[in-house]
């Protein structure tokens, strides 16, 4: 031991030296068109036992920075400048041999997507065991089970003998956390560890991860796009935008007094922090009662909002094969009833497997209900003949979750939006083209987009195209099935604003299917909470959010990251 080392530990304990320090880091990728800088001038310091979050949208360089710290940049990427100091040692250009020594027992990683990060052909136990063995730790069946049990997997001995596809998403993420922490690393890189999971599962897993890392004294580098989650879980937050660190500081300070314009926008549009519905109509001075009234208000009684859609005792039972000639019933939707008034937004909320999308598909007449009725504008949709269904489809249009999958890659944007018009023989070619131009204006896309193809557009632009396509036939009801779930927060906020704006202009009715309560808060007037096929709670959004009656609803609300953070109202409403 040399004297200076002793003096450091005497002065302020070993905690005075950062565990990880990233200085002036620049990362570039070699592409066909030359070198592209993905990260510039990144700074970051993590003290032992500290949790630091990097926040940013996709493409901001947050994951790239983290991957550089564990030496896992993709083949064409390299650290072009700066240092990554791990406990004083620069590992930015360390040999592969040195990195293999460090990985696992000094730097651990919990990756983003639990579905793709476990090798499907090996048992979970095997994947834990090889980690232990590679890092020179005891790797018997009991050791493996212990590691899994610590990550909160019940019945670990049996679970270790199962394959990843026999695990749910939450369980897989637990297994990945078990692997990441199995060799008790000093630094854990958690790259969006829960963004693919339901909120309640997300909360459990983050709680567990927090408990484990604080017990082991592990430092955590948390990568997330969710500012609320970052603020709730991390001591310090680093905001990245287009490869630059734009702001850094203690979580709550940064959230309450964002200085950089980008951080301000991020705070303003973080759905988990916003507390009110997007009030386009009210801002325009229109009262919601007027909005509820149909456009041809003269004919209808004005005080009674017209019911456009009524679901009565709707059930859907799927037959699951369980052997030759045998089947068991699976009730996806169980006796659900609710109604939707014209010009309003009703949200169906639930976690995966709650049956919310099945309801949407039955309303769209894409699935036949096992029992119950769907009454659209006074007519039971099950009694429609083929011609009437065709006409019905004009009035009820869907917008789906995945803007990458729901647009035909071989159709240009004009053809995509024009197709429903052509199918329903609306107008001639000239008038259809005029309509497409109008629609693009409505969704705030330049008319030059018409000649482009889906793969040339960003996720937000594609979702705008999907909205324009849905609007082409002037429908009355739009079913949005997780329509904004695949988008970054800022883009999500733009699309939600667009939807609210279109609703006030065109008097649209939305049925909004989502797992994201924060989104519900922003867009919905009424909420239906579904759990395991049943409707557990229904009411106006304010009632459900302010005084939830059911335990399940309360659990869902508590699980929103950042919900507990007390923000000054001006920030929350900004």
């Amino acid at each position, binding site marked *: 031991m040399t004297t200076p080392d002793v003096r450091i530990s005497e002065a302020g304990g070993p905690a005075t030296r950062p565990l990880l320090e990233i200085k002036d880091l620049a990362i570039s990728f070699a592409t066909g068109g030359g070198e592209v800088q993905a990260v510039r001038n990144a700074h970051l310091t993590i003290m032992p036992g500290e949790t630091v979050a990097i926040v940013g949208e996709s493409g901001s360089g947050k994951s790239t920075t983290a991957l550089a710290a*564990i030496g*896992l940049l*993709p083949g064409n990427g390299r650290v072009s400048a700066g240092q990554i100091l791990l406990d004083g040692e620069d590992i930015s250009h360390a040999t*592969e041999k040195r990195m*293999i*020594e*460090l*990985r*696992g*027992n000094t730097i*651990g*990683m919990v*990756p*983003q*997507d639990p579905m*793709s*990060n*476990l*090798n*499907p*052909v*090996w*048992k979970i136990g095997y994947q834990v065991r*090889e*980690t232990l063995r*590679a*890092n020179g730790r005891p790797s018997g069946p009991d050791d493996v089970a212990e590691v899994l049990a610590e990550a909160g997997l019940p019945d670990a001995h049996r679970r270790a003998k199962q*394959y990843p*596809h026999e695990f749910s998403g939450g369980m897989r993420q637990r297994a*990945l956390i078990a*692997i*990441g922490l199995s*060799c008790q690393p000093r630094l854990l890189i958690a790259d969006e560890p829960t963004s693919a999971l339901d909120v309640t599962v997300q909360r459990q897993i983050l709680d567990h991860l927090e408990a484990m890392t604080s017990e082991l004294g592990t430092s955590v580098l948390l990568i997330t796009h969710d500012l609320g989650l970052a603020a709730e879980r991390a001591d310090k937050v680093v905001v990245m935008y287009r490869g630059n660190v734009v702001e850094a500081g203690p979580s709550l300070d940064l959230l309450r007094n964002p200085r950089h314009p980008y951080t301000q926008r991020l705070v303003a549009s973080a759905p988990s922090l916003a507390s009110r519905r997007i009030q386009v109509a009210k801002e325009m001075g229109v009262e919601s009662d007027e909005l509820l009234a149909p456009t041809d208000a003269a004919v209808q009684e004005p005080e009674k909002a017209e019911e456009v859609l009524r679901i009565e005792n709707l059930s859907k039972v799927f037959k699951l*094969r*369980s*052997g030759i000639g045998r089947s068991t019933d699976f009730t996806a939707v169980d006796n659900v009833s609710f109604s939707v008034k014209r010009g309003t937004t009703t949200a169906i909320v639930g976690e995966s497997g709650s049956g919310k999308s099945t309801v949407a598909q039955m309303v769209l007449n894409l699935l036949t209900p096992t029992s119950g009725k769907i009454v659209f504008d006074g007519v039971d949709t099950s009694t429609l003949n083929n011609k009437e269904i065709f006409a019905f489809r004009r009035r009820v249009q869907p917008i789906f979750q995945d803007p990458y999958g729901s647009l035909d890659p071989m159709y240009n944007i004009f053809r995509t939006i024009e197709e429903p018009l052509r199918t329903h023989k609306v107008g001639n070619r000239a008038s259809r083209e005029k309509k497409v131009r109008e629609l693009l204006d409505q969704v705030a896309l330049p008319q030059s987009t018409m000649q482009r193809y889906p793969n040339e557009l960003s996720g937000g632009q594609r979702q705008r195209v999907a909205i324009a396509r849905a609007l082409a036939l002037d429908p009355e009801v739009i079913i949005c099935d997780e329509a904004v779930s695949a988008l970054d927060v800022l883009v999500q906020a733009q699309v939600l604003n667009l939807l609210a704006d279109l609703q006030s202009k065109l008097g649209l009715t939305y049925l909004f299917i989502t797992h994201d309560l924060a989104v519900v808060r922003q867009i919905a007037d009424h909420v239906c909470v579904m759990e395991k096929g049943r409707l557990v709670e229904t009411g106006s959004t304010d009632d459900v959010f302010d005084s939830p009656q059911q335990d399940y609803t309360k659990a869902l609300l508590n699980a929103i990251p950042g919900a507990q953070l007390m923000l000054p109202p001006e920030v929350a409403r900004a």
Partner: protein
Amino acid sequence: MIQYILRRLLQVIPVFLGTTLLVYYMVFALPGDPIAALFGDRQPNPAVIAALRQQYNLDEPFWVQYGLFLKNLFTFNLGNDFTGQPIAATLGRVFPVTAMLAIEALVIQGVFGVAAGLFAGLRKGKLFDSTVLITSLVVIAIPTFVLGFVLQLVVGVQLGWAKPTVGANVTWGTLLLPAFVLGLVSFAYVLRLTRASVIENMNADYVRTATAKGLSRPRVVFAHILRNSMIPVATYLGANLGGLMGGAIVTEGIFNVPGVGQKLYQAILRSEGPTIVAIVSVFVLIFVVANLLVDLLYAWLDPRIRYDK
């Protein structure tokens, strides 16, 4: 699992009946009289012809002939061919030869194809990768019979490294050159398939996670990249078995290997219905059983596939 295997084996029955019926019918419908062909240019005694026709049931209508064939088959009596030799004995002589040839070819394409494909995939875009990519394309483009004759001439005759023809004395060593020719085209396909699969899996998330766990490079390559890349290759090898049997006809012809391919070729020339159908029946059996084995291997390679339902 057992249930699945039994069900698959039961499927053999309709497949077997269907193929034999089809082949039997096609042989029946062939133009020309096989008995007349036996005598060449000579004019035989009509009584002899009638006796021969009766002996081989050629005077019966099609359905009776086929029925008699099936009856004989189930009593393990394959009958005699037109030269009077028992077909069962012929099959017993020629099948082991072709089996040896096929095994050698399978090893060449399986082992070497996978190894070269893995190496090329891991070093994508490097010299080795580019070289094998072009070479394999050339190999795929050249018909087997051209390749066979060229190698026979160069390796067998000019260089003298191997016997140009096999003849009656069959050993693993003498079969090496024909097996190489037989396996070469599939070798190129296996190589390319493995390479593509390795490149795809190399960038998979679970491979990155495996590296992040601190595993050594060889472990990542063999346990995570190669193992997962074998799934499509196994499927191809199974489906390709038919190609191997078809290719044996050409290869055995070129190198004078006394195997099934050569026998089948002769039988087709002579319109020897019973021999053709017997050989094809065995082919069908091998093909069905081999595909069952590949499906089981497939389930072992990829646990997401389960046959117990």
